[in-house]
């Protein structure tokens, strides 16, 4: 990396995350104004967006090549009081908590105390949600049966498609005009609503152009003052780029990156969408610009790398907006889950890997940043060389890139009813979530604690930690005579809680659609303009609501333990086993040894155990898959935890697999930590027994010793493992290449291991930034070497 990039990178890494009250104050000012009251809800949102972009500070750092910050400086994080209002106590917690903190200065605190809180209290979206939602939803939520993504962050979770690399916002404004001209007031009773929405989109398009021009003005000013001739010219060029994009379609590599970046800032300023936002198939989108300029001689490889690295740093400047409460526990990280996709196939189905793919892999390796995260899409059409290059980066041990099965993703999208071209233009975002890029609104609605539901099932609908009846009466499990009875009862409870969850999501979706439309994001995703409908209201071509199952490995081991120890081997009575869990296995070391070390476990390619994984998966799948949502799409499942397996474990008592109360559950579809003892091939085989193609993503973690990947044979073997897993329709796999010894050492002496990055679940994080429970959980995962 060159000197400029090194400096910018360091600046970004050293910036202190802090709360900026700028956005909160601007939006409060706008909503207080009389002007605001005169407009429809969509226009009001667009004008609020315009108000922020017109007045927010412009940040251009020395030597920057790509400009635009969401806050006033790198890592100055805005808040979104119209969605989720931080109390003074929340701000205090954010400021003082030992990990994932955000500094709060006096000015911000007083702005909150005197202006923001007094205005928004009682008016926030979060309060609207909690005031209307059912009591049984609240009960389940509080018991830790599920979480809810949209209670404090917006339904983002979408990825830009190729459209926006070929169009500017002036083009979109023309499309809006056409859509307005086509409104049918004679027959369409929604024509007026659509008209208001389209007008709002038009305001939002103008706002982002204005915002870019403000940067151009500032760059011109800086150019005038600049004494360094080289930088002066650079600033002038940057100014002219900002006058051109995003108003017009980009024509050069630099323009394309700056164009995207304004779009990115727009999306994460309008609201605080989950999983920030994402350029998606970056090597595909940028390749035409790269090719053209390289051929014409206006771009060099060095300049390409420099620009990409400058672009990488922009992502790193933007931590996830601070979460609070349960949402912080389920996803406690600075990472905001932008996931760059590389490789895969083109729209016509051919191999998409190109020269730029490899250059971007070089950039990923050199930057070694948590944000943006990166992944490779591997299709049967891609070469081993491509995977091996990625494996060399994986080997350096920061968890990137993760590895996805393009062919499975395409089949998942086709199963959901998407066109083949849209499927091939898709990929994975966030942690592992499948989506059709540029055409789909796919919302993660919340994590779903399968193990907690089983605990409730064991106790006839009662949550033993509170004594409260929150489920159904399906009988006391210790009286059941066989495994089918157990599964039947569990299925009933799962269906019951899925009903509650789905109903809650339907309410929450409507609250968002009515109160907080997103005209800017709607510009970007097809077919919102054509349909005159907001992204939050079903405007996208495809609309999917996902529920995230958590605890597959743990629950498989629990059911297998019951099958083996109670029904088949009769090692222990069912009642005795349940009582042992209630007593948290106190003085029952021998029993725990039996349950842990002498009972079949998921992750060892043993059908005796894995059959239960398939049963659990199918129960969950059948409960969710294909239910209609309120925006014209369907509910689907995916299997990922982020960090919720720690939170979910903390609300779940001891379990018949020998796990102690409140300890973390298994993550993703990985085996319970340490339960897999037959090496990685057995794990992959177990994990492939569930039907990945009916999910929107599954997450599998593997921990490898660095020694394993030391030589060519090790790297080749990693490639072969990936190919084999994908042949079995596995969706995703990621690798921690680190020794347990290193992790223990880092836990003991955090100060010496500030740079240690580990793969958590679908994202990487600094080991030091993880809570102790999560650190322990990662340490306990089985470590695979080669033999």
């Amino acid at each position: 990396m060159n000197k400029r990039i090194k400096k910018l990178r360091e600046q970004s890494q050293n910036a202190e995350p802090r709360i900026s009250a700028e956005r909160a104050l601007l939006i409060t000012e706008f909503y207080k104004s009389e002007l605001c009251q005169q407009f429809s809800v969509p226009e009001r949102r667009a004008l609020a967006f315009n108000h922020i972009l017109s007045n927010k500070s412009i940040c251009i750092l020395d030597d920057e090549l790509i400009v635009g910050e969401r806050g006033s400086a790198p890592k100055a994080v805005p808040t979104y009081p119209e969605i989720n209002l931080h109390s003074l106590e929340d701000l205090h917690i954010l400021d003082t908590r030992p990990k994932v903190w955000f500094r709060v200065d006096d000015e911000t605190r007083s702005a909150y105390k005197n202006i923001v809180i007094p205005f928004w209290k009682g008016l926030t979206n979060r309060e609207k949600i909690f005031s209307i939602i059912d009591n049984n939803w609240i009960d389940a939520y509080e018991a830790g049966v599920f979480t809810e993504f949209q209670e404090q962050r917006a339904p983002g979770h979408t990825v830009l498609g190729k459209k926006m690399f070929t169009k500017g916002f002036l083009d979109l404004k023309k499309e809006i005009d056409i859509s307005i001209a086509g409104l049918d007031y004679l027959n369409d009773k929604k024509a007026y609503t659509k008209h208001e929405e389209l007008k709002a989109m038009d305001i939002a398009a103008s706002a982002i152009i204005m915002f870019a021009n403000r940067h151009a003005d500032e760059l011109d000013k800086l150019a005038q003052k600049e004494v360094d001739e080289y930088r002066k010219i650079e600033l002038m060029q940057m100014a002219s780029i900002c006058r051109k994009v995003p108003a017009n379609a980009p024509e050069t590599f630099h323009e394309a990156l700056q164009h995207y970046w304004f779009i990115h800032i727009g999306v994460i300023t309008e609201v605080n969408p989950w999983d920030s936002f994402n350029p998606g198939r970056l090597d595909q989108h940028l390749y035409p610009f790269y090719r053209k300029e390289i051929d014409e001689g206006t771009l060099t490889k060095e300049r390409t790398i420099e620009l990409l690295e400058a672009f990488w740093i922009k992502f790193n400047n933007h931590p996830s907006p601070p979460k609070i409460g349960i949402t912080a526990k389920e996803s406690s990280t600075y990472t905001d889950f932008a996931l760059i996709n590389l490789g895969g196939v083109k729209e016509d189905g051919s191999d998409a890997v190109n020269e730029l793919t490899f250059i971007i892999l070089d950039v990923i390796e050199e930057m070694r940043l948590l944000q943006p995260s990166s992944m490779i899409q591997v299709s049967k059409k891609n070469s081993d060389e491509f995977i091996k290059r990625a494996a060399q980066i994986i080997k350096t041990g920061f968890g990137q890139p993760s590895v996805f099965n393009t062919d499975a993703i395409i089949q998942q999208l086709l199963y959901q009813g998407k066109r083949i071209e849209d499927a091939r233009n898709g990929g994975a975002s966030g942690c592992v979530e499948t989506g059709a890029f540029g055409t789909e609104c796919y919302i993660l609605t919340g994590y779903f604690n399968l193990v907690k539901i089983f605990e409730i099932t064991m106790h006839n609908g009662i949550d033993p930690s509170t004594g409260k009846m929150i489920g159904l009466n399906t009988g006391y499990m210790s009286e059941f005579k066989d495994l089918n009875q157990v599964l039947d009862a569990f299925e009933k409870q799962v269906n019951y809680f899925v009903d509650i969850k789905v109903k809650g999501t339907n309410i929450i979706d409507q609250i968002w659609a009515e109160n907080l439309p997103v005209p800017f994001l709607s510009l970007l995703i097809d077919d919102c303009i054509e349909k005159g409908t907001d992204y939050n209201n079903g405007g996208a071509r495809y609309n999917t609501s996902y529920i995230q199952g958590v605890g597959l490995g743990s629950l498989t081991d629990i059911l297998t333990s019951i099958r083996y120890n109670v029904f088949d081997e009769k090692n222990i009575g069912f009642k005795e086993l349940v009582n042992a869990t209630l007593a948290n296995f106190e003085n029952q070391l021998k029993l725990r040894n039996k349950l842990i070390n002498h009972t079949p476990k998921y992750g060892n390619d043993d059908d005796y155990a894995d059959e239960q994984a398939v049963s659990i998966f199918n129960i969950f799948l059948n409960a969710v898959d294909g239910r209609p949502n309120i925006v014209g799409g369907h509910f689907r499942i995916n299997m990922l935890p982020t960090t919720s397996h720690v939170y979910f474990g903390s609300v779940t008592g001891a379990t018949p697999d020998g796990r102690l109360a409140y300890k973390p559950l298994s993550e993703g579809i990985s085996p319970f930590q340490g339960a897999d003892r037959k090496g990685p091939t057995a794990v992959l085989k177990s994990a492939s027994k569930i039907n990945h193609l009916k999910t929107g993503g599954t997450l599998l973690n593997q921990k490898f010793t660095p020694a394993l990947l030391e030589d060519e044979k090790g790297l080749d073997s990693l490639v072969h493992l990936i190919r084999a897993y994908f042949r079995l329709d596995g969706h995703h796999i990621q690798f921690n290449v680190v020794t347990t010894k290193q992790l223990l050492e880092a836990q003991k002496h955090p100060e010496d291991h500030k740079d240690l990055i580990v793969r958590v679940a679908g994202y990487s994080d600094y080991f030091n930034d993880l809570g102790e429970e999560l650190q322990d959980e990662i340490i306990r995962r089985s470590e695979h070497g080669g033999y």
Partner: protein
Amino acid sequence: MNPVAGKYSAKYLITYNYYPFPMHGIIFDIKNFAIHDGPGIRQTIFFKGCPLLCWWCHNPESRSADIFSIEKEEIIDGVKVRDVETIGKKYSVAELLNEIKKDIVFFEESGGGITLSGGEPLLQYDFVLALLKECRKLEIHTCIDTTGNINSDKLLNIASLTNLFLFDLKHMDNDQHIKYAGVNNKLILKNLKLLDEMGKDIWIRFPLIPGINDDESNLLRMMDFLSKRKSSHPISILPYHKIGKHKYERTGIDFKMNGFQEPATNDVTKIMNMFTDAGFSTSIGG
């Protein structure tokens, strides 16, 4: 697509109810994802029972052909629990094939297969023969890691069903071989010649033990012997390491290697270069 049948149950376990060979093999371990025991990703199956008594043996529990139990300690959340471990397990050919078949997808993707190791797999000749026949039917690549100290007729019968041999050469000097490995090396060298004449693929495995077989005269004799073979066989140098020591303690077998050191990396490289300079394709480890 998973062959899931019925509402919950996934009864897709492949079971063999009948198999014409009622004999059993005694196996003490199966390692999946073995990447240093032949080409590709392999499943290495460790057979119990060995005709040699090498001082440096990593698997002393494999020497006896019997199944036995030893005490062991499990640690659960930092607390010790006494437990019993059984060393060795009986497998029918069908049962072992079930284990092997689980990893076929990895063999196919990587050009791997199974490696029979031990102990000395060929001590369980009938079982191995039956197993190899089945593997041939399934087109699974087979490799045998052998001490070579085995009846030549049997070895040649097995050879026709084996794709690759990992052949251990421990010492060229007969007296030294008897001292450190417990048997003379005549049969071993004869068998290596026979396999070579048969045109078999052979990878020579040379456990490098400082102070026992790293002297120049042994190395020169080894190169001389190997250079006279019909084919040039690649050599893997396996540097001695002490990880097996705790197994001696647990199994109560006398550990004779106190005072012996692991070879220095420099020395290993030097020896590798000697082989390489003499025209052998040589690698360190696996």
